[in-house]
Structure formats: C-alpha cells, structure tokens
C-alpha cells in the first residue's frame, strides 16, 4: 500500500483508506472514498495531483493526496 501522492502517472489504484481530516466529507462527496478506483492523470506543481475518479477529474493538493492510502491495481 502507498499513498495516492506516490502513484505514477497512468497507474490505476483502489482507495483503501482516507485519513480523518476536515475535508473528508467533501472528499467523500467527490467520490474519494474507500473502494473507489482512481487513475493518476498528471503530477502538478508543488506536489499537487490530477486524478480521475469515475467520470470526474479532480485536482488535489499534496496534503490531500498524502492523506489517501491506495493499492495499485493496474496501469492504463
């Protein structure tokens, strides 16, 4: 297991855990919840990450990406 932040571009992973934090409800509403599949689209400035969750494309700050534990499943 690693964090979403460490996922390579093009890799697909399943979310295992989302750490407790103020944004957790919002993250859940955006689809970032345990069991959801995420695809890493791009690595941005200052550790930000661009991911695809289902139909949505989300931009996350480094600290948000670090708070999500994932298990890599495949590469697109």
């Amino acid at each position, binding site marked *: 297991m690693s964090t979403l932040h460490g996922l390579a571009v093009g890799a697909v992973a399943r979310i295992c855990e989302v750490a407790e934090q103020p944004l957790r409800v919002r993250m859940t509403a955006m689809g970032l919840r345990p069991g959801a599949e995420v695809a890493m689209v791009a*690595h941005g400035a200052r550790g930000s990450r661009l991911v695809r969750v289902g*139909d949505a494309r989300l931009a996350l700050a480094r600290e948000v990406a670090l708070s999500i534990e994932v298990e890599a499943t495949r590469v697109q």
Partner: protein
Amino acid sequence: MCSECQSGTSVIEHTLGRPVVALVGRPNVGKSTLFSRLAGVHRKMGNWPATTVEVGTSIVSIQGRDIELLDLPGTSSLSPVSPDEQLACDLVVDEGVDAVVAVVDASNIARCLYLVSQLREIQAPVVVALTMGDVADRRGIRVDVEALQRELGLPVIPVVPRSGQGVEAVRNAIASALDEPHRPHRVLHFDDLEQADERLRWVGDVMATVIDRSDERSTLTDRVDRIVTAPLLGTVVLLAVLWVVFQATTTLASPVQGALDDLINRGLGGLVSGWINAIAPASPWLRGLVVDGVIAGVGTLLTFLPVMSIMFLLLALLEDSGYMSRAAVVADHLMRVAGLPGKALLPLLVGFGCNVPAVSSTRSVGDARHRLLTGLVVPFTACSARLAVYVFVAGIFFGDRAGTVVFLMYLVSITLVVMGSMLFRLAFFRGIPREPLLIELPPYRLPTTKYVFADAWLRVKGFLQEAGGIVVSTVLIVWLLMSIPLAGGGFAQTPVADSAYGAISRAVAPVFAPAGFDDWHTAGALLTGFVAKEVVISSWAQNYALVDSTRHFNRASLSADLKRDFDRSSGGHSTAAVLAFLVFLTAYTPCVATVGAQRREFGWRWAATGVVSQLAFAWLIAVLVYQVLRLIGVS
C-alpha cells in the same frame, strides 16, 4: 447544512408573487447555458439580496403562466461548505421553491447523482435535465435514460442547451411539476459521513444499472491536462494566456478608448460648446455644466467600454472552454502566499491593466468570501492609469533612473496586494479556512459564440447601469466644486485656486505633511485622482494655472513648479517625498469607476470599507516611507 424545513410555504413566492423554479446542479454541468435558453434575453445577473452571491433571475412564461426562474450557484450537495452553496441550499430547502430542475451532466453522472439523491427528499417536485449527452457520446459512455428515470423516480429530460434541443420538453416538464402537490419533507441531516457513504453506495447501484462504459475511450482531455497542469509547462501556458488577456485588455482597447475620448470630449464637447456659446453667450456656467460636467462624465464612463467588453469576452471564453479551472490549479500555490485561491490570479493580473474590469472579473473566483477579498485587494494593483503618472513623475525627479523607479512601484504594488490581503483577512475574514486545493475540473469544450457574447454583454450592461450613476455624478461634483467661486469672480469663471475645490484642497493638504507633500496643488490633484488616476497630471497643470484655451499645458513649466513645491513641502527631502507620493498614489482610494464596480459586485458597505481602509493604509505607508527615507538621509 440545511436546517429542518418546517413549512411548505414559499417565502420567495410571497416576495415575488409568482411560482419560483430553481435550476440546481454542480458547477460546469451546463446549468447557466440551460438557464440562458429557458430565459432568453429577459435575464438578469446580480447578487442575491443581503449577500454577495450571484444568482441569475428571469421571468419566464411557460404555458401561459409567468414563473420566476432562478439560476442558483453551483453546488455539489445540499451540505454547503461555502456561502454560495449555503444560499443554493437555503433557497431549495428552507425557502421552499415551487419546483427544482436538477441539471445532471450525462458525461459525469456519478458526481451529479449525490445531489439528486438529496433533492429527491425535498418537498418541491424535481425534474432532471440531462445535459452533455454529446460529450458522453464522444467518450463512448451510453446512458439508459429510461432506466435512469426508473431508478430516480423522477422525470429525466435529455437536453442540449447549446443547440436548444430538448429545451421545450424541459419547459413542459416544469409546467407539469408545478401542478404536482408538494411531497412530505424527509430531509433532516445531510453531512453525516455514514449517510454520505450510504448515498454513494446508492449512486454506485444506479450507475451500474444505467451506464454502459464498455466503449469508453481514453480522452484527449487527459493528454491536454498533462501539459497544462505540469509544473513548468503549465506555468508557461498560464503566463502565455495571461499575457494575451493582459495585452488585449490594455493594448487593443487603448486606441479605441482614445478615439472614444476624442469623439466625446473633443468632438461632441466642442460641438455642444460652440452651440451653447452661440445661443447663450452670457451663460458660461451652462457650457461648463453640459460640457465639463455631463459630457465629460458620460465620456469617462464610456471610455471604459472597450476594456470591459474585451475583458468579459475573454473571461467568458476561458470559463466556457474549461481552461479557467486548470489555471486555478497551476496558480494555486502562488496565490496561497496572499491567502487567496488560484482563481484570484486572473483578476489581479487584469488589475495591472485596469482595476474596473478586474473587480468585475472576480466573479470567476467562485467562493463568495474569496471573491470579496480579491475584490478588495484588486485596487492595490498598479493600473495603466497610474503608470502614466509614475512615468511622468519619475521622469521629472529621477532622470536616468526613472525606469527603475517605475519598476519599484510595481514591486510596491505586488507587496501591497499581499499585505492588503493579509490585513483584510485579519480584520474581516478570520473565518475563511485555508483549505488545501480540492476542485473538480470540467471537460474541455468548444466555447459557444452566442453564450460568450451574451454573457459579456450582460456584464457590460450591468456595469453601465450600476456604476454609471456614480461615475457621472462624481465628475459633476468635481466640476461643481471647481465652478463655485470663493474669492470673487462669477460661477464657472473663477480660477481653480479661488474655487471651492481650491479651498478644499488647501484644507486637506496639511494631512500629507507627515508624508512630505502637503502642497495644495498636489492634494487637489490627488482629490481629482478619485475620478480617474490619469487625471492627476492634467489636474496639476490646472491647479498651477498652466492650461491654455486648447486644454494643453507646458510640461517644462509644470516640472519646474512640481520640483519647487515638493522641495519646499519636504524641507529639502524631495526624493523621499516624491517616493512617498508615488506609494500613496499606488495604494490610495481607487478611481470612482472601480468603486462603482465594487459597489455593483459587493454592495455599498464593502465598497465604502474598501475606500476607507485603502485611504488609511495608503497614508500610513506613505508616512512610513517618507519618514524612514528622511531618517536614512535620502534628500
């Protein structure tokens, strides 16, 4: 979090006297385009009463029945995390609208169904408008509309707002919904994590039934996003886009502004002046009132039209194409230094061209509190009008080092934006959380010409209607003060020094003594700088009685007068006093058109707060600059 709804009575209906239908949906699902289609030309954009949240409103006739249609701010759920979402939630649940059109993006259904799952529990009937079917098709996503209708238990109408296809069906569905009785209210708590999880499981089940992804293709959006959000390349792309916006709003608009100024002030002004002189030669006050008051005021207002039009067109293009959200991602870490979100970068950069469209363009910032904070610090950006004064003053006092001084003023301006944001945040916005970046990016789309022009026109019209009165009346007041004689002479025939304006300038001048420039000519020029910053130069010339009958003045004489008076008022520390003056000019009260734009966007209270805060802040900084430079021996 919406509170419990106690009554099915619509507060809005009582206020407006007709059934209220609200368009609700996530950001970037085509909600505003659908609103434009349904509303046609009879729509208005403006802040909802007692808030700074923008809501579109229109009276629409559907099957012979007038309804009030609302385009609510985008919201992801009925668990609000910002004032925009709070207002949407309040209007839909607590205020009890009569029907809701839930706008759902067919290419992104999963993200929209969470909100729909909550809307199914409100009292008002709900109609689902399924947009972006074309985008879903291109991506190989197939939506089973009948299955979706069955799963949701709500009417689902596929619609393409850009072409108008399906819009009539939406209107018919609204009419049917308004005849339905309200349902019993079931919503109590939305933002509980367990409940959110339960809703998402329901969304997953619905998705499995209605969506076929077997033909889904890798998108071009992914590949483009890898470029435009990359650390280095993304920044280069952003700078290039901003450069184009900046150039277009200043360079392209400039000749048109000059031509308009010539046409109105010289052409029309000269014509009317000659005409009044012919029919009423004994009434110079009439000529002054009409030409120097009314025509000059309207001229000042209209010269902002080119820059506003170009700015709003470009903003609508960037928003509609989907790039604006990417720009926010790239700029996010830069803007956080000033405690602002990434989307604030664009208004601030535009501010270096002109503060007026910059204040209006804060609408792209999104969150109402961040928008207000951005709108309050925009006037600290050194607009091109101030550049004209920098160049003129630096040329007189610093010779070969003039370029360095002008550059220094831009650094001062950037520092003021950061400091101003920190101070405003400390004073008024302590509650704004410094949330890390977490936003959804819309797919790229080809902007619609009709939508882009309609959106730009709507905003320009709003500016003219709401800021026009302030600009014209301020120009009239300045003319009036300059016309009132206090030491002999007739009305509108007195020298500036002997007018009420001259007396006020003399009364104000001592305030600037601690900053080293307590000369009335300069105090008066700063007062008229409230009308427009570039007026400072011509106002100096007027105050020194150097303007001839063709409104031209001798620059060498003005330079000599300014050097003499700055040297005298600063006791020989003219360099320190001039630098303090330039800093004051950068930071003090924005021009009247900017205040008009602030009033339009944020209301009188915030516009006045901005004016007073900036005035106090500018004075303190100018005094600090002068005193420190004087102490370290800058003469």
